[in-house]
Each structure stands twice: as structure tokens, then as C-alpha cells.
């Protein structure tokens, strides 16, 4: 049974998200849907792309974090190991935890987090400038 406190929490978070998206829109930032919430269940990750940029969304205890899924070692697209709960590089085996921190080299730098807003069952990417264009390489 949902308690009154839980209902208020959900309501509060929805208001916050609505404020977030409203502020982003007022700032002229572009919001791009990148996933449905049901595509990123708790404890899992979802890989998608925005233009030519690979993205990875991870859901830890209901909180979704989005990263540019590009290895900071050599730029390879990243995958998800569901057993290890780690973001892994298919080129040289670098591993990142769900906060983007390196847990196995050769990568030395953490992953680049991306700002997202959850609204009406969708995860919206607040598009950073220059992102989402088709790469020419």
C-alpha cells in the first residue's frame, strides 16, 4: 500500500521534474527523448544513441544516470555487463562503475555524465551544445 508520504514524494519529484524541464525550455535548451522509463528498469542499463553519439543510461535504485558511452581511453563505444553491473569497454577492457568512475584500466578518466530530465515516463536528454550531429569520420 502506498503511504501518504510516498504519494507526496512522487508528487514533489514530479513538480521538480516539471520545473526542471520548464527551466531548461526557458533557457532555450533542447530536450531530446532518449528512452522510455520502462526501458531502464532498476539495476539495469540501456544503450542508445543520439546522432552518432552512443549513450548509456543506468538505473541505480530508481535514479537514472546517463553517460556518453565513449571510453575515455581510446573512444570505443561502451557496453554493459549485467552480471558485474559495470560499464565495460570492448576494446581494451576498461571498466566503469555506475557513477562513471574507472574501476579497471587502461582508461584513467571517468565517464562524461549528461544531464537528463525524467518527464511523463520518458528520459529527456538536455542536449549539450554541439552534440547530436552526425559525425563525419
Amino acid at each position, binding site marked *: 500500500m502506498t503511504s501518504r508520504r510516498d504519494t507526496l514524494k512522487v508528487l514533489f519529484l514530479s513538480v521538480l521534474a516539471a520545473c526542471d524541464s520548464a527551466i531548461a525550455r526557458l533557457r532555450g535548451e533542447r530536450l531530446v527523448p532518449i528512452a522510455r522509463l520502462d526501458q531502464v528498469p532498476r539495476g539495469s542499463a540501456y544503450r542508445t544513441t543520439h546522432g552518432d553519439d552512443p549513450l548509456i543510461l543506468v538505473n541505480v535504485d530508481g535514479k537514472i544516470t546517463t553517460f556518453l558511452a565513449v571510453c575515455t581511453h*581510446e573512444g570505443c*563505444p561502451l557496453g554493459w*555487463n549485467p552480471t558485474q553491473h559495470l560499464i565495460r569497454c570492448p576494446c581494451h*577492457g576498461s571498466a566503469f562503475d555506475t557513477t562513471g568512475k574507472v574501476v579497471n584500466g*587502461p582508461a584513467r578518466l571517468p565517464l562524461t555524465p549528461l544531464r537528463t530530465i525524467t518527464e511523463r515516463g520518458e528520459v529527456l536528454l538536455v542536449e549539450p551544445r554541439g552534440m547530436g550531429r552526425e559525425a563525419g*569520420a
Partner: protein
Amino acid sequence: MLTRRLFPIAALALLAAPSALAAQAKEYLYLANTLGGDVSIIAIPEHKVVGTVPATVVGNSPDDVISTREGDVLYISRLDTKDVIAVSTTTEKALWHVDVGGTPNHLALSRDQRHLFVPLYDKGELVVVDTKTHAILKRITVGTSAHGTILGPSGKYVYVGLMEGNQLAQVDVATNTVKRVIHAPEGVRPFQLSPDEKLIYAQLSKLNGFVVIDIARDSVIKTISMPTMGGPAPKPSLALSHWVVNHGLGMTSDGKYLVANASLSGFTAIYSVPDLKLVGTIPVGKEPNWVVFSRDGKYVYVSNRRDNTLSVISMADRKEVTRLKVGEFPQRMAVATAVRPR
């Protein structure tokens, strides 16, 4: 009475069994899809995807796949779990695995196939695994970021390219010790040896081409620049999600041709050996990564890891015959004559 009558038939059937088995043996290309965690199986020479060794068997980011000469076993290095698995091509199930204690990259087998050489990128070691007992026999320190491994044509030495160490280690197979260090101008990526084992052809991280290294003199004697096909010379950059210009170099078994991928430019080039004249360029898929040949040398296979395809190239026509859709992020490949499960 009946037993006596049936005996010759049974004996004949038994005699025929091995040849029947041999008749089923067929050449296949096994292609490891690192992000998919599986291995695509492509029939040769039909060039059709006929099966997959699934992620439930492989999984955990397969980095390299090599085959025994007989084609009965595949050895697969796995990045995520830091191990090597042996997979039967007859059952397409795992036979055994060995934890190697570091991130394994490109594998090689000794001539007698008793020893499997496993370079560990994060440990700077070459691990020697006994393929019969599955025990680790030795850990040889070879230098920073041990990456590619090739058994030389003589079978006496195994060569290990160091991706960040800017050199190669020549390891004596009889003693499992480093005999010689061969220097390179920068990070060593895929490489090949000349049939007389005097020269190394090596792609380097930031070079749009490859170098020829004289092993005895320990020096670069020639640098080959890849053509740019009318465009600007590709440059490595993280912004473009690449830090290596070219990846994938293969030599035909007769030692007459070298096939080199232009990974950022999306083509592969054929050079005659030893004069290293460019004899052909073939457009392939996006970010070609690896090169292997069919057993008869008629076809060269190039895995294109950014668009999940395999380019099949006719060596005689120097043209792409077909491009097949395979698994996610296809990289390393092995050709094996195998009997697949029914």
C-alpha cells in the same frame, strides 16, 4: 548366426565412420562480436551466416578468437572476466576456462599447440597456458600494455606487441624468456612477420600506414603511407571517438601480399611483398578492424566493427564480394575446418 552375418556390416560401418565425419567437416569463419558477447559462424565459401555461438556460452566481451589447426577447438580471450575459454566447434559448448589474472588480448598457439600464449594488457605479462592441463606454466614480464601476439614462422619465437610500450618482445618459446626487445616509434598495433622472420610489418597507433622493422638491426627501414583516397589524411582524435588510425594487418600464407586496413577511412589496401607496392584498395564497412584469410587464400575477411558487418573480399578480383550483417562490434576472427553440431 545373425551376429556372424551382421559383423562384417558393423565393421564396415565402423571403418566408414571417420570418413563420414571428415565428409561433414567444413570451413567456417568464427567472428567474435565483442559487444554482443557471441561468435558469428559464417560458412566458407558460401559466405552465409549459418549460426552463432551464443552469449550464454561466450559472453563477457570476447576479445580474440583463434583455432587449433584441426579446427576442433576455439580459444577465446574475454576482457570482462579476465579469462580464456576453450570452446568445442563440434558441440559449440565451453570445454574449460582458465583465469589469467589480467585483461587478455590477442592470443597465439605454439607450433605443437600445447602452449597458449596470452598477453595481459594491464599486467604487461605474457602468460603461458598448458592447453592439456589448463595450468598456467609461466608469467613472462614483457612490458607495458601487452596487446598483440604472433608465433613466428619458425615456431621458435612468439612476438608480443606493446601498445603503450612502443616496442615488441621476442620471446623464446623453448625457454619462455624474452630474448630480444625490438623498438618501434610508437604504440604497436596489429603486426605481421615476413616468412623468413627477418622483418616485422607493424601498424602504429597514430600512423596512417605501417612500418617495416628489421629485427636484427632493431630499426625501422621503411614507412609506408596509406593512400588518402582523395580526402584529408585521417588523424587520431578522441573527439572523433578514435585513437587509432589503422587496425588490421594480414599476410597471405604464401607471403606475397599484405592486406592493411585503413580503419578511419573505411577501406582496405593490398600491397605486394616484398616491394610493398599498392596493388589495390577496396572500400569496406565502417571502421575495419581485423584481417584473416580463407584456407585457400582466395578470400580475405575484414570485420567492420562500427557497422556490425563483415566484408568478404576476393583476392583475385580485389573486390568486395559481399558484406554480411553480423553481431554487435565484430572484431577478431578465426578460420577453422570444423564439424558443427546438427
